[in-house]
């Protein structure tokens, strides 16, 4: 089941491309930032290097062209321009296309590649014909990815390394940041103070680095001083072998391996009985610093061996997503079985069984939380994609828009994040297209020329609230009203609140756009948003102030797999509703129904709340009981009741899909398995709510 190296490369390359995009956008704002330039260069360099290694020659050759340009940039020979960033972004897309092509046997537009190559070469001074083939690609010492390994690095800066402003300590620091490092300075070249040339570098270093970074990443640290230092890199332990306790290396072997000591000398010294290190130094065979470095290496190896189990637990691990899905499925089944166990235990008066059931319940709960947690990812990855979207689209439209983000670290279920992407794209596009005005218009209105879209994510209970706020022109109440009436979504006489009116933009077939652009305005966008969010069991809320901007708030449950819910019964059928939407349950007597004069309204304290009799709505057989229950739900500030025969109680619901055959069933979003093994259906509250609204409208209009 091992991933093929090619897949590993592609996966890594996709990640690098994502980072590259972020770096490029950053570079656009700070074209002189050396750090960012370095990041761009390293990303290109790594893609080129690993690409060549895994036979992606086209990618490697292409990336080489960009790398060449960035080599000049980081040497201050040319400056970063907007045009260059644009080209780089296009190049990034092209590399991605090449990767996609490699995965799916698609064709890449080679003329585009050639065009880009030409454009990059134009950046080179005197337009020197760049080498046709990629320059020597550093032969990586090892191909494997994330395993923890220990490396021996000797770093010997050139004597004049200070002259170009390089601080070797900074490089050592970078190296140390890659993992656990032991640095040993070699001071033997330092002369007496009288002979010291203050600007010559005498020190050199041995570093023992235990890291998950690969050879390329280590080499990358020295990338800017390649010509100004000697750097040797050797793997002295590749993680897996460490279990072999006997492979522990002796000090002497290490010194021989490093070339600090000849094997013959070692042989001779070993016949003496003193501590090896001392003997070697006394005999002048090796310098103390070399012994120290070798000792450090020995210690690092031993330490790594001791720490291996702990280190493994702490380090991260790449797991195919399907395996996690399978795990969640199994935990789901376990939750179901556990609830059956609890039910069985409750039915018998057996103290031992009850105790066991409780223990299992506790464990399953812990296991469930842990499992769902594993699938949590920060939402930030999606955010960075939006940065690009905003940049490209606003340019296309001649607008000046900045995307601010907050809460990128907020974690959400992986599937939820994936499925959130499209609706968020639609909302942001809508803001760019219809929300934010042209710079001149903004200026006239006394606003800054640059518009802002603020995208944030924050945890709130068992959900995440994602807010998209723009400082554009706000929604046009009258236009929406007209449109809604025209589309039959609103009666001529209706005077809904702003809030209710604005929500109509999410209705099917609604669009107020005057012109159809490539961006949005085909009258499908917001409708799609609504459906996607509904499918995630989320809610949308909207606020807008004319001239000030629009805020759309999307609330999404943290996970799609398991929810707390309320179990209800109608006849002998059982249904569940997401508990997060339930406000309270009240009784509905025949008297209440009569008092409402045929309208489906119930008084909850001082408010009249519309309700939907599910028995009738689902056209179910059987008579309703004299006293029914109304489950009052609240969704996006709207309260609606659902009439059921009776409320059974809370239930931990493992959500199961109803499958293809039932995918378009109205009012039902899925199913779950109850403790007794039977199936209950999950009510699709948002969809039912629309039904209730329609029903109420019919009742009011006669």
């Amino acid at each position, binding site marked *: 089941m091992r991933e093929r190296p090619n897949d590993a490369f592609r996966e890594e390359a996709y990640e690098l491309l994502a980072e590259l995009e972020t770096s490029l956008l950053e570079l656009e704002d700070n074209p002189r930032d050396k750090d960012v330039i370095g990041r761009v260069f390293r990303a290109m360099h790594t893609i080129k290097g690993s690409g060549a290694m895994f036979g992606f020659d086209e990618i490697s050759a292409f990336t080489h062209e960009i790398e060449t340009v960035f080599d000049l940039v980081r040497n201050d020979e040319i400056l970063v321009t907007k045009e260059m960033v644009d080209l780089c972004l296009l190049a990034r897309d092209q590399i991605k296309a090449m990767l996609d092509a490699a995965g799916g046997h698609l064709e890449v537009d080679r003329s585009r590649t050639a065009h880009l190559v030409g454009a990059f070469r134009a950046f080179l001074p005197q337009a020197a014909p760049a080498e046709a083939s990629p320059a020597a690609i550093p032969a990586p010492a090892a191909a494997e990815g994330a395993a923890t390994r220990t490396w021996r690095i000797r770093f010997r800066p050139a004597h004049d390394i*200070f002259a170009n402003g390089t*601080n*070797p*300590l900074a490089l*050592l*620091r970078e190296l*140390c940041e890659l993992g656990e490092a*032991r*640095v*040993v*300075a*070699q*001071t*033997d070249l*330092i*002369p*007496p*103070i*009288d002979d*010291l040339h*203050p*600007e010559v*570098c*005498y*020190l050199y*270093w*041995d*570093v023992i680095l235990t890291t998950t970074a690969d050879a390329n990443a280590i080499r990358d640290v020295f990338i800017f001083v390649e010509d100004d230092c000697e750097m040797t890199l050797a793997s002295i332990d590749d993680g897996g072998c460490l279990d072999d306790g006997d492979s522990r290396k002796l000090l002497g072997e290490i010194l021989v391996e490093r070339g600090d000591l000849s094997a013959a000398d070692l042989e001779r010294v070993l016949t003496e009985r003193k501590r090896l290190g*001392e003997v070697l*130094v006394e005999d002048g065979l090796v*310098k*103390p*610093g070399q012994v*120290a*470095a070798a*000792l*450090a290496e020995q210690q690092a190896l031993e330490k790594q061996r001791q720490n291996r189990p702990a280190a493994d637990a702490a380090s991260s691990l790449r797991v195919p997503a399907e395996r996690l899905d399978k795990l969640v499925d199994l935990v789901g089944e376990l939750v179901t079985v556990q609830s059956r166990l609890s039910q069985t235990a409750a039915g018998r008066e057996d103290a031992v069984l009850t105790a066991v059931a409780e223990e299992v319940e506790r464990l399953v709960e812990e296991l469930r939380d842990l499992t769902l947690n594993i699938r949590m990812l920060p939402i930030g990855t999606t955010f960075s994609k939006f940065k690009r979207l905003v940049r490209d689209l606003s340019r296309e439209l001649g607008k000046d828009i900045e995307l601010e983000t907050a809460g990128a670290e907020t974690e959400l279920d992986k599937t939820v994040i994936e499925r959130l992407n499209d609706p968020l794209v639609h909302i942001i596009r809508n803001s760019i297209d219809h929300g934010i005005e042209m710079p001149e218009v903004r200026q006239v209105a006394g606003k800054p020329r640059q518009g802002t879209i603020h995208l944030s994510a924050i945890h709130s209970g068992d959900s995440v609230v994602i807010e998209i706020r723009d400082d554009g022109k706000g929604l046009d109440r009258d236009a929406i009203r007209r449109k809604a009436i025209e589309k039959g979504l609103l009666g001529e006489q209706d005077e809904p609140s702003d809030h209710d009116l604005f929500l109509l933009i999410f209705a099917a077939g609604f669009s107020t756009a005057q012109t159809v652009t490539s961006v949005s305005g085909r009258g499908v966008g917001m409708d799609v948003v609504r459906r996607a969010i509904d499918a995630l069991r989320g809610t949308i809320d909207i606020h807008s102030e004319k001239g000030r901007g629009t805020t759309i708030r999307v609330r999404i449950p943290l996970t799609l797999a398991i929810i707390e819910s309320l179990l209800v019964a109608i006849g002998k059928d059982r249904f569940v509703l997401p508990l997060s939407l339930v406000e309270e349950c009240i009784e509905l007597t025949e008297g209440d129904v009569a008092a409402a004069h045929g309208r489906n309204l119930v008084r909850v304290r001082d408010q009249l709340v519309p309700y939907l009799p599910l028995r009738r709505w689902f056209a179910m057989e059987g008579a309703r009981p004299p006293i029914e229950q109304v489950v009052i739900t609240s969704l996006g500030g709207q309260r609606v009741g659902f009439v059921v025969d009776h409320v059974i109680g809370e239930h931990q619901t493992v959500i199961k899909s109803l499958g293809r055959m039932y995918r378009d069933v109205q009012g039902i979003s899925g199913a779950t398995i109850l403790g007794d093994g039977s199936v209950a259906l999950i009510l699709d509250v948002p969809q039912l709510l629309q039904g209730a609204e329609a029903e109420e409208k019919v009742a009011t209009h006669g």
Partner: protein
Amino acid sequence: MSAFDYVESGEVDGRRCGRLHLGSSLTVAEAAELRLALMAALEDCAVLTLDAAEVGEVDVAGLQGLCAVHRTGVARGRQVLVTGLDVGPWPEILRLAGLRRHEACPLSNDRKNCLWL
């Protein structure tokens, strides 16, 4: 006034003691000046204490200078000590630079005679 301020600090066991205050910066920019100050101070006393407590910035050139004066002192039978290595950037710098007593100095195989902590 120089960034490197030398003062005599009396005698211990008949050995003349001196103290050199290292300024706030020990980088390649100051390396030439540092070298001169160290040489002068080492000329003047038998026990030289370098006060590094005020150093805020130090690079490899600075470290080499201190190393060099130390080994010169040892070669001439003088004692060179350094104080203030436990504050400011020092602990981190010494870790990064891999300068630790018993590890680095060719003169300190007995592990007692290294400049560095």
